[in-house]
């Protein structure tokens, strides 16, 4: 196993600044021009319980956190107990001796020192960051600058606290881990941030959402930053209001997006079908978590694949895509907007909590994002549902002298309701032809990622792709990873070549939905389906072992 990765884990109660410390640590590595992957494990509660944040860093692209850490900072007893077995060889456990008592590792009285200041609990995260800084050989001055920048609220006390802890911990772990600087400083984005920015770069005009983990941070990001981009974010009464407002805004010409998780999305189905009938290009982001129903809100899963593909009653084309990295999430959000506006039908960007909320260094060029170029009506009488060869009718928006009628009922070309059998059949065919047009278009663009040149074929999708890639890297397994970006229409033309031979499928589902999709649509019969469905993303080493067990 290669040892090019350094992993830092900080664990504690919610409310002790664990996630914040994790994100500061990630930023710290990024400021060293290194690459990072940051996964937060948190429960559905606001204070207490057990949270931890893992940051793995390397001087190459790194696409997963690792469960086994080189440095663990345990802010409370539960973290100590839970992660004491998760140290790498040579790894160090630093723990809050006020919470843990006497134990193996390096004890530091984080709480006692914190109590010298107001809001002691919030201070603990600063202690964790300080410990990390010492362990990788940062001097006090650099640490001070970091704290100033990242913990600006109550700066003085934060610095004083950090300096005290540094004095205590430095002698014991000083410079234990030598980390080289990397090639360039990168931004760190979560999947949701990447989608927010990618959609913005792709011409998004407005966002509607009702909070639901793991999609809430999309709403929060756009509520905070959307204004600067002329892109309002609206939080209405419920998901049904969300999607119907969004469709109204599309009618008025806005490139709109909505976001939710399974339960909220289920509520949007009726209107999703409306978008299909009205031919409204609406981009929906569906962030999955373990279901069914409320399930396990703050954890990850890929159990909504077929639910997403078959959204909405009746028959109409839809496009479903799932990004395999934060970078891809950025471009794909923009590409989906463009595609949907091109073909005027609703679509879903399918992610998981692990994609939506994990964070990673990215190299993104906003110029690479697509920008919608819908077919617009020229001169002459306008017919909203003009029956064209590929089924796509030109768009026109109010205010206009022309009559623009969008209809949830079956309709004629002008958009007037019809019950006429010939017209019904004709319009069903019109919409059905769009599916063909979409497939033709997809055949011309990049729809499947392939990594590696030889070895067994591993089929996967979404955030699991990142787990697989990291697993192969860490264990030097030679394999070809095939990741369809588009799941509906599924690029069968690209996947058919994998029908023969011992394909492995990796996914985070108990029922094996992705494997079943591949079987049904492509005829691929995998030799093994490696599944995980306990809410946690794969650990690369654990996954590598499973893959090795098969190949």
């Amino acid at each position, binding site marked *: 196993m290669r040892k090019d990765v350094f992993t830092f884990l900080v664990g504690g109660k919610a409310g002790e600044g664990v996630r914040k410390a994790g994100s500061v640590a990630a930023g710290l590595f990024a400021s060293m021009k290194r690459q990072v992957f940051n996964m937060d494990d948190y429960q559905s509660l606001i204070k207490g319980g057990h949270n931890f944040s893992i940051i793995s860093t390397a001087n190459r692209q790194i696409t997963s956190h690792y469960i086994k850490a080189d440095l663990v900072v345990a802010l409370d007893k539960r973290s100590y107990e839970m992660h004491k077995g998760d140290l790498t060889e040579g790894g160090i456990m630093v723990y809050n001796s006020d919470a843990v008592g006497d134990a193996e590792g390096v004890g530091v009285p984080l709480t006692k020192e914190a109590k010298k200041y107001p809001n002691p609990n919030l201070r603990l995260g600063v202690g964790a960051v300080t410990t990390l800084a010492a362990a990788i050989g940062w001097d006090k001055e650099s640490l001070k600058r970091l704290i100033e920048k990242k913990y600006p609220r109550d700066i003085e006390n934060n610095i004083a606290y950090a300096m005290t802890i540094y004095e205590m911990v430095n002698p014991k772990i000083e410079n234990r881990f030598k980390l080289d600087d990397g090639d360039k400083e990168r*931004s760190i984005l979560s999947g949701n941030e990447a989608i927010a920015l990618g959609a913005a770069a792709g011409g998004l005009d407005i966002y509607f959402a009702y909070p639901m983990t793991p999609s809430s941070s999309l709403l929060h990001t756009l509520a905070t930053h959307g204004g600067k981009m002329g892109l309002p974010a609206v939080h209405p009464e419920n998901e049904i*209001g969300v999607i*119907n407002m969004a469709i109204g*805004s599309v009618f008025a010409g806005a490139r709109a997006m909505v976001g939710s998780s399974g339960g909220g999305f289920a509520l949007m189905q009726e209107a999703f079908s409306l978008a299909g009938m009205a031919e409204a290009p609406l981009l929906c982001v569906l962030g999955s978590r373990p279901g069914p129903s409320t399930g396990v809100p703050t954890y990850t899963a890929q159990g909504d694949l077929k639910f997403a593909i078959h959204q909405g009653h009746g028959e109409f084309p839809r496009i479903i895509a799932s990004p395999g990295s934060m970078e891809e999430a950025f471009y794909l959000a923009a590409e989906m907007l463009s595609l949907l506006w091109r073909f005027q039908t609703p679509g879903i960007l399918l992610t998981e909590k692990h994609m939506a909320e994990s964070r990673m260094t990215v190299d993104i060029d*906003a110029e690479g994002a697509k920008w919608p170029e819908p077919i617009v009506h020229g001169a002459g009488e306008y017919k909203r549902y003009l029956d064209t060869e590929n089924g796509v009718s030109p768009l026109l928006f109010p*205010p206009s002298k022309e009559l623009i009628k969008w209809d*949830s009922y079956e309709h004629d070309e002008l958009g007037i309701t019809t019950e006429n059998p010939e017209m019904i059949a004709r319009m069903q065919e019109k919409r059905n032809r769009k599916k063909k047009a979409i497939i033709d278009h997809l055949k011309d663009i990049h729809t499947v990622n392939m990594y590696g040149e030889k070895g067994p074929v591993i089929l996967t999708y979404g955030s699991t792709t990142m787990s697989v890639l990291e697993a192969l890297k860490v264990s030097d397994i030679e394999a070809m990873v095939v990741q369809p970006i588009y799941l509906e229409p599924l690029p069968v033309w690209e996947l058919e070549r994998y029908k023969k031979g011992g394909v492995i499928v990796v996914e985070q589902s108990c029922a094996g939905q992705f494997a079943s999709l591949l079987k049904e649509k492509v005829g691929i019969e995998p030799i093994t389906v490696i599944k995980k469905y306990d809410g946690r993303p794969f650990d690369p080493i654990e996954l590598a072992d499973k893959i090795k067990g098969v190949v």
Partner: protein
Amino acid sequence: MDDLATYAENTWCPGCGNFGILSAFKKAVRKLEEKGIKRGRIVISAGIGCHGKIFDYLKLSGLYSIHGRSMATVQGMKIANPDLKVVAFAGDGDAFGEGISHMIFAAKRNADITVIIHDNGVYGLTTGQYTPTSEKGFKGPSTPKGSIEEPLNPLALMLEAGATFVARGFPVKLDHLADIIVQAIEHEGFSFVDVLQPCVSFYNTYKKYNTMVEILDHIPADYQKAMAVAKRGDKLPLGVIYKIQKPPFHKELYGDWNPVMKRMSKEERRKRILNLFQPR
């Protein structure tokens, strides 16, 4: 065929109160045009039900929505392009059964939309079931022995929810109704117009309403008085019952922005995104 009509065949029952609403609305559009509001700027939506058919009959742009959602639809239109004047037609079942959450919140947030309720106290198009505004005892196919629920009071409920313009009309008083609609559309903020609409097939209320309606000669002085008017049981006062000024939702949201008409250029948008990308 007048210039506000489409070729769609009108399939309302002869004598239906909806005809009056259609005529009044056309009158209102013409008056608004005289006042300088081009008809291309007036954009409509409707729910599903007999009322919804008005969508097909009006030569105005819009989106024929789904049951109970037209008031959400038009809120989206307005936020996307606040230059539009948006009107949602809704049934009583539509607005107070399926769509009540959107009604209450449109009122609460003072969304700058007009909602016209074809309040016939019945699910017309699905053959006459009781609705949220049906009298207790109403016999329909889902309540063959009579409905067992008290009706909601739409005016009072909308007042309670925060509506800034509340009115009641009656299609028999066509000009009066047209005038209310003009005022409703002109009003900046949430305008609610409850139209007492007789349904000749399932709930013929012409006689009852004709004896009970009474045109208000002035807008009640304050909220309390408006509420009292809304709750009168002996008479059904017609006219504007309440009207106050408050900033509408879209202005509170983004001031004088317009997401569609002021859309940033690709270049400008990306310049701004770059700022957000700086490693922090």
